[in-house]
Structure formats: C-alpha cells, structure tokens
C-alpha cells in the first residue's frame, strides 16, 4: 500500500491532467503530417494556420485511438461534441483551441496501481495541440523575453487529455499513475508517450488539507518534464502550501511553473486572465456519435494490457509481477518472446533475466530466434556452460542474429568440467590458499572470494562459480 504523504499535520490531494500526442499520420483536423523533429513550419495548411474560410474535418484514426485509450481505462465512450476554448496566445493562430468541453469522448474510467489502489479517471477527451514557441532573450522563459518565434508543425496535432480524479495522495502514487498510464498508452499503440520529447505532458493539480477537512484551494503545476520531476514538484508545491497556511496566509488559486533548477514552483499566469475560456460548441464540426458496434470493434481490437501481461509473465517465470525484470521486459514488449523461449522447454526465469539484461536494444521481436536462446538456456541449466560463459555466448548470438549455441561454445573452447575435475581444482585451491581456507572455516565468509578466484584462474574461467561456491560450502560443513 502506498503511504499517504503528510507534512505538519496536512495531507495532499492531487489530480493529474496528462496530455498525450496520438500516433497518427496527420493532424486532428487537417492532412498535414503529424511529425516531430522536422524543419519549422513545414507541416502547415490553411486549417493549421487558422486562415479565414478553412474548415476542419475530423481524423478518423485519431478518434479510434482516442476511444482505444478510453476503453483501455474502462471509460464509457459516448457521443461527443467539439468546443472552442478561446484564449489569446500566438501559438494558437485561430485564438481558440478546438477541444471538448461538456461532452467529451470518454468519461468515468479508472486505472489500477500495482498495490490494487484504483485512481478514478474523470474523462479523456480529444483536442488539438498548440504550436511551439521559442522565447528570445531574457532567461529563455516567458517572463522578460523580448519576443517569440513560432513553429506551427505541432499545432493541430491530435492529443488526448486524460484527467484523473483527485484520488492521488502522495508523490510516489502520482509517479506510479503516470508510469502505468504510459505503459498502457504504449501497449495499445496510441502514443509513444515520451515525456522528454513532449509527446506526453503532465500537469498536476495540488492542494493540501488537514485530514477530514474539505478540499483546499488548488494550484496547477506545469512544465514537469519527467516522472521523477513530477514527484519532486508535487512535494515542493504541497510543502509551499502548508507553509503558507501555517503562517496564517492563504493559498491563491493559480498556475505555477516547475523550475527543475531551484526545485520550486513559481507563479506563472496573472489571475485575471486565467480560466476565462468562453467555451462554446464549434459550429464548423458536427458531433461524433459512436455506434455500439464500432465501440465493440475498437474494444475487441485492444491488445492485452500491461498489468495482465506482467501477471502472465510472472506466473510463467515463477517471480512476482512487480519485479524489475518483469516490468522492464513487458515495457519493451518482449514478454511474448520470453514465452516463446519457454515453449521450447527452456527455464523461463533464466530466459527472462537474459532478455532483460542483454536485449535492451533488440525491440519487441528480437532477431535471435527463440529456439536458439532456449538451447542456450538449456545448456546453462544443465551445467554444460557457466552463467558467465552463457553471457558471452548470448553476446555471440546477438551479434550473429542467432546460431547454434553448442557450436558457438565449442568455437570458444567452452567445455563443461565434470565434477571430478572441479573437486580437484577446489582441493588445489584450498592447498594453495591455506590462510583463506582457515579464515573461511572460522566463519569469515568473505574469505571464500580468494578460493573461488583461485579456481577460476586455474580453470581459465571455465569453472562454474556457483558450483565452486557450493562445493566450498559443503566442504566447510
């Protein structure tokens, strides 16, 4: 169970707004490419630029991905309407952003954390992204700059904004919510959800209160660029609010900017302009009304979600679902590969560790055939090669894109030592290192290192370290 954050007798209440860029070919309402990293202003069209007379037309793929996100989060997918959110800012040339207001695509979902805590999802709606501003002069931040340069490649890129309920009670829980949400978004192919590249952005609404009291005044924190920063920012903001209240002052509702450098939040927008968006239905767009059949179709196309896949992999390997190897391998999409290795009769737990350690760069479909890794794992399990040798052979397999591990072992001169050979080597080590042996027998476990080292050296690395240790343990007793 995640521990609730407390400070000076206060608790925190946190809700998160997560924006994700959808993995479409084109923008939400026009056919310009949705692509990151190109020269500025090469993906622009009359709709993107808000030119007079330009008419937006909804991207079918974006709606499907939006519904996919909603269904993965257990939301109700419903008839929805697009609305204009009016504000004056140069990165939005129409002077409004097309979003959804009182009739969003998805409502009433939930996300379960690994400890079973359920965080409510209030809504997940479609909207368009804004352009990208670069502020000139001054500090590079908005205040004190001498002007801005605008690139509209990102303007109009489809986003889904996922709004949690204020169910989050600690920085750790906020981090876990975002990590799990990210894993789901990647697994269902909705987004690459990279916080560093801005394809996933998280704003946190933070307030504090004494237990049992009604909700306090909240502040919204922006500019959080990593899951780690999110935890720090929430913690710093909650402490700031507690300090204000205990000093007899009150929290002012405002948007605040997280500064990674000084580890604090700073007031960003003046209050008079905030949240006066004058939403109204966009007359250029018609409602989207999903049929029950369409919703079923989208739902049935959903792949298994990460939590379910982690549970399956954990059972297969006989480990806990929240072990690092399980988390990592599922995140990389390599769980199906590990399962395939296991179908060739190999020890799944060993296969899991090899995949986690060595396959980081190989993607969801590693080019080493599963049967080859299975053969290697079998050799390791039977003691034909040591763990260290297996690692070397795995490197060979990866370099060559597969191969016969037995042949590779022969090429490298890796030969299994029979037990008699190993016993002889251990005897020799004890004879050669009498001090170490004496200390080891006196209960100084560290002294074993010198003995194992001697055997490894004498065998030129061919001996199995684990087997040597086991022999020494049994010899001592």
């Amino acid at each position, binding site marked *: 169970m995640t521990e609730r954050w407390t400070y000076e007798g206060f608790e925190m209440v946190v809700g998160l707004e997560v924006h994700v860029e959808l993995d479409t070919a084109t923008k939400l309402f026009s056919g310009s490419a949705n692509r990151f990293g190109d020269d500025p202003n090469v993906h622009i069209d009359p709709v993107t630029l808000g030119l007079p007379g330009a008419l937006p037309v909804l991207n079918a793929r974006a709606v499907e991905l939006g519904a996919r996100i909603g269904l993965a989060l257990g939301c109700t997918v419903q008839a929805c*309407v697009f609305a204009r959110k009016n504000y004056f800012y140069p990165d939005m040339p129409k002077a409004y952003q097309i979003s959804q207001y009182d009739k969003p695509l998805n409502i009433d979902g939930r996300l379960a954390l690994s400890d079973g805590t359920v965080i409510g999802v209030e809504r997940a709606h479609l909207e368009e992204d804004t352009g990208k501003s670069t502020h000139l002069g001054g500090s590079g931040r908005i205040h004190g700059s001498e002007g801005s340069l605008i690139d509209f490649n990102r303007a109009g890129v489809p986003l889904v904004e996922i709004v949690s309920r204020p169910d989050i009670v600690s920085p750790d829980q906020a981090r876990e919510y975002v990590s799990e949400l990210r894993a789901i978004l990647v697994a269902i192919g909705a987004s690459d959800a990279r916080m560093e590249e801005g394809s996933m952005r998280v704003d946190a609404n933070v307030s504090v209160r004494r237990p049992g009291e009604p909700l306090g005044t909240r502040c919204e924190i922006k500019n959080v660029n990593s899951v780690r920063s999110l935890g720090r920012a929430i913690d710093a903001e909650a402490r700031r609010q507690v300090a204000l209240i205990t000093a007899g002052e009150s929290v002012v509702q405002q948007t605040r900017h997280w500064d990674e450098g000084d580890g604090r939040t700073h007031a960003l927008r003046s209050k008079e302009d905030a949240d006066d968006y004058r939403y109204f239905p966009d007359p250029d767009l018609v409602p*989207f009304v999903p049929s029950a059949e369409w919703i079923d179709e989208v739902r049935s196309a959903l792949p298994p979600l990460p939590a379910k896949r982690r549970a399956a992999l954990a059972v297969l390997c006989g480990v806990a679902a929240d072990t690092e190897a399980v988390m990592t391998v599922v995140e990389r999409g390599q769980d199906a590969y590990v399962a395939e290795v296991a179908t060739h009769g190999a020890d799944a737990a060993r296969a899991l560790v090899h995949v986690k350690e060595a396959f980081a760069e190989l993607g969801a479909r590693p080019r080493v055939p599963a049967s080859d890794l299975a053969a290697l794992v079998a050799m390791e399990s039977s003691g034909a090669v040591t763990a260290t040798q297996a690692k070397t052979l795995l490197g060979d397999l990866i370099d060559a894109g597969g191969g016969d591990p037995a042949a590779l072992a022969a090429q490298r001169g890796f030969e299994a030592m029979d037990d008699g050979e190993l016993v002889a080597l251990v005897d020799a080590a004890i004879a050669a290192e009498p001090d170490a042996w004496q200390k080891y027998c006196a209960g100084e476990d560290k002294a074993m290192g010198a003995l194992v080292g001697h055997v490894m050296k004498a065998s030129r690395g061919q001996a199995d370290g684990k087997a040597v240790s086991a022999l020494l343990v049994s010899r001592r007793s």
Partner: protein
Amino acid sequence: MAGRITDDDVAHVARLARLGLDPDDVQRAVAELGAVLEHFADIDALELDAVEPMAQPYPLTNVLREDVVTTSLDRDEVLAQAPDAVDGRFAVPPILGDGA
C-alpha cells in the same frame, strides 16, 4: 434592452480578445449584444425541456476523413505574408507583460 450586458462586461470580453474598443465602440456593442441577449431571453422563456439540445444546426454526425497526409503550404510563401519571420518561424512580440 438595457441591463442584460454592461459596459464592464463588454470591456472585459474585449480585453480577453485583445480588441481595442473606444468608448463609442463599447456603447454600440452594449446595444447590439444586448439585443442578441434579448433574443436568447425570448428562447429561454419557452418550454423546451422536451427538446434535445443541438450542438449545431446541420442534421449531420460522424463527418470524418481518412488519416492520409496531404500537401502542406509552401513555407516561404506563407512567411512572406507574416509581419515578421526569423529562421523559418513567425516572429511575434513578447507574450506576457504589458497585456498587448
């Protein structure tokens, strides 16, 4: 009719939209917007509980396009029409500050 909207309301909305209205403009807007609101008040007075709210007047839903890339506008041509451009980007005055 007077009273549905005040000078302050108009000034506030004008400020949000960065419209520079002189006092005569404000008076004209108060009168015109007041008339529009009066019309809505007439609609408000009707018994409409049984009528489904509509987002727009066309009997259309689900107007969608395929996710296929189309040609973008030529950047240089577009930027040539902007008041100012630097390095392929639109240059704009400072964003926050004097409320321009």
